[in-house]
């Protein structure tokens, strides 16, 4: 089950951009107004740092995913325990994504369709994708969905050029101050930090020397795209209006109006977005099943899919409303990122360094 470096790039890109561009823009604008792009830059740097940390750690243990090397370093029980927060956060994130997707489609497109039908359809897709086809299939799918998403995003920005008002970005910093900008940077950073999923995937890359380069270019591309979309939203709507919108990117696409003819193109973007969501959810299903199998020492991770998939759907259904999603995001940025993105990788890096020194001493 090997993936190429390019597939790694597109997997990370598809998985992160889909959520970041859709949902993470207006929280930043609400706090830092027209300086939200600076917050995104800061967030990007934090995200890149987490990516770097995580990939370096993974490369110290080539061919071994998180559960495997953590158990090797710290013993079966402690190592296994360290993987639990990761599993919990991935399950919760997958349920959150499924629920947000279904909510959005229900709100905008299919408002008479019951919510569970939308969720069930997507869940069926992801089960087939992961269970029947596996990581190779997901990787190849991301290699298609990724460039498609990128092209659609760039096209939507270009088509909006006629609507921009350059003065919307000024005055820079004076209104909000550095404290607010940094405060607003943290939620997007916690979503760029989703790249700790690389702890599992880098082990599957065929040529591990490419892994670091590809991961870093991927996170840089992601941050670039989110930055441009934040800037475009600010240019077209200004900070006052976009802070109040729930889905500013979507409204941006809806306001494309070329020659009074090209209008209402939001349906194409939605169509492409569904590919991205499908890739993301299948990937998380794979991730959770695979890691859980490694954690419990099981050989066949596909059997675990039968457990993971219903759990993800159950989490998605159990979320009562938008405030619960807000709470999950708070959980993500206050506990998950410091723990799973920073603390545990540092701990494992330390353990790796100690064990390498012990081996060198033995020799």
């Amino acid at each position, binding site marked *: 089950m090997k993936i190429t470096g390019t597939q790694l790039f597109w997997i990370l890109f598809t998985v992160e951009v889909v959520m970041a561009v859709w949902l993470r823009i207006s929280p930043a604008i609400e706090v830092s107004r027209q300086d939200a792009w600076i917050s995104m830059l800061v967030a990007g740097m934090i995200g890149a740092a987490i990516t770097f940390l995580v990939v370096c750690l993974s490369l110290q243990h080539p061919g071994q995913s998180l559960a495997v090397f953590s158990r090797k370093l710290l013993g079966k029980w402690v190592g296994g325990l360290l993987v639990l927060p990761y599993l919990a956060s991935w399950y919760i994130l997958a349920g959150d994504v499924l629920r947000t997707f279904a909510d959005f489609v229900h*709100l*905008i*497109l*299919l*408002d*008479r*369709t*019951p919510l569970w*039908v939308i969720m069930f*359809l997507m869940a*069926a897709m992801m089960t*087939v994708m992961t269970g029947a086809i596996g990581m190779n299939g997901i990787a190849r799918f991301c290699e298609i969905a990724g460039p498609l998403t990128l092209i659609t995003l760039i096209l939507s920005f270009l088509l909006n050029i006629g609507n921009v008002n350059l*003065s919307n970005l*000024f*005055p820079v910093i*004076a*209104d909000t101050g550095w404290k607010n900008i940094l405060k607003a940077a943290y939620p997007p950073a916690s979503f760029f930090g989703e790249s700790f999923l690389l702890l599992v995937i880098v082990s599957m890359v065929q040529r591990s020397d490419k892994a670091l380069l590809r991961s870093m270019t991927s996170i840089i591309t992601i941050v670039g795209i989110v930055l441009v979309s934040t800037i475009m939203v600010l240019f*077209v*709507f*200004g900070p*006052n*209006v976009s802070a*109040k*919108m729930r889905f500013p990117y979507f*409204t941006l696409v*809806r*306001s494309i*109006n070329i020659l009074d003819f090209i*209008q*209402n193109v939001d349906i194409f973007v939605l169509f492409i977005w569904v590919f991205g969501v499908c890739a993301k959810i299948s990937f998380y299903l794979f991730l959770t099943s695979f890691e859980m199998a490694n954690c419990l020492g099981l050989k066949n991770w596909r059997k675990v899919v039968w457990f993971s998939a219903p759990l993800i759907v159950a989490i998605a259904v159990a979320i009562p409303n938008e405030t619960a999603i807000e709470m999950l995001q708070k959980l993500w940025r206050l506990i998950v990122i410091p723990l799973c993105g920073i603390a545990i990788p540092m701990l494992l890096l330390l353990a790796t360094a100690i064990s390498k020194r012990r081996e060198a001493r033995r020799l």
Partner: protein
Amino acid sequence: MKRIIKLGIVLFFVITCTTGCWNLTEPDELAFITAAGMDAAPDGRIEISSQIAVPSAIDVQQNQSSIGKSFLVVSAMGKNVMDAGRTMQGKLSRSLFYEHRQAIIFGQSMAQRGVGDMLDMFVRNPKSEIRSTVAVVKDGTAKDLLNIKPKFDPFSGLAILRVQSSVGSTPYFYRHFLSDALNEGMTPLVPAFHIVGKNEFACVGAAMLDNTADLKLKGFLNAEQSFLAYWMIGRQSTISVTSVVDRDGGLATIRLGSLKSRIRVILTDSGKPAIEVRLSGGGSVIENNSNLDPSKGPDRRIIEQKLSDSTRQKVEQLIDQVQHQYKTDVFGFGDHIHRRYPQRWKTLKRDWDQSFSKLPVSVQVTLHVKDPGQSNSAMKRFI
């Protein structure tokens, strides 16, 4: 065999769901709204009128009177927009479809009451879109404007949009209006239309809706004033300027394209801000009834000078009137101060309307005659 059965089940399920069974609506079950009108009704309610397109009657070339109107107007009253919408739906056999709406029109009574409460629905309702253009009716109701059958277009919602382009302004879309309304440094300037006679409308300038007071109507600018104001805020693409250019009172008209406006904030000696407005444009002379010959250098410079002077006087008068009579910042001077001197703006923005009326403004207008037109001296002059 097993695989085919499994695949068959999955495909079957996918097909039943993707035909959109719950959300299936045929086009003939939809009423396409092309314009929405809002008027104030007695006892604090509002009256919503919707102009609905009748597709079968559009674009038919022959005898239009025998076919009938290509649209119909339905009205209903309610506590807010969606409440009235619910009542309106009860009068129609097709469900209302908002996503092709071209215009949102406020009647004068509604504008006087304040349209702040009307803003939310257009953004929040997922079925709505914010691509419409916004307009205000002067001395009339939106319902009457919607009922007019325009001369060229199938319905007045579209005509309003097109009239704005044909007089040289950029159409004022709802998202600009929202952005201006939420901006503390300026007051939105909405195009105003007037109903003439029984079945005609005309663009008569612009309405100032005060965003510090729930977007109540503050006053109107007439057509020429509104074009000059749009020029200052960058919403006008062409404009025609006429003035006296020689001693005998001969007139010349220039049609300006490439209009530019530069508003600069400078600090006076006492540390207070002052505004410098620099307008420029170039174009060709399209009518000349004076003694001057625009194709000759010195004469051309005199024409440019006179036209620039008269435009400058008109702009100064406009700014003066807006500053002292209406006391509301439609030119976005506050916005410019905000961008250039954000610290100072923090203290100024509290009573901006008062500070705005005391703001010293200097105006400079530079017009270029790029082209004298197809003839040289005026036709009436003997060679």
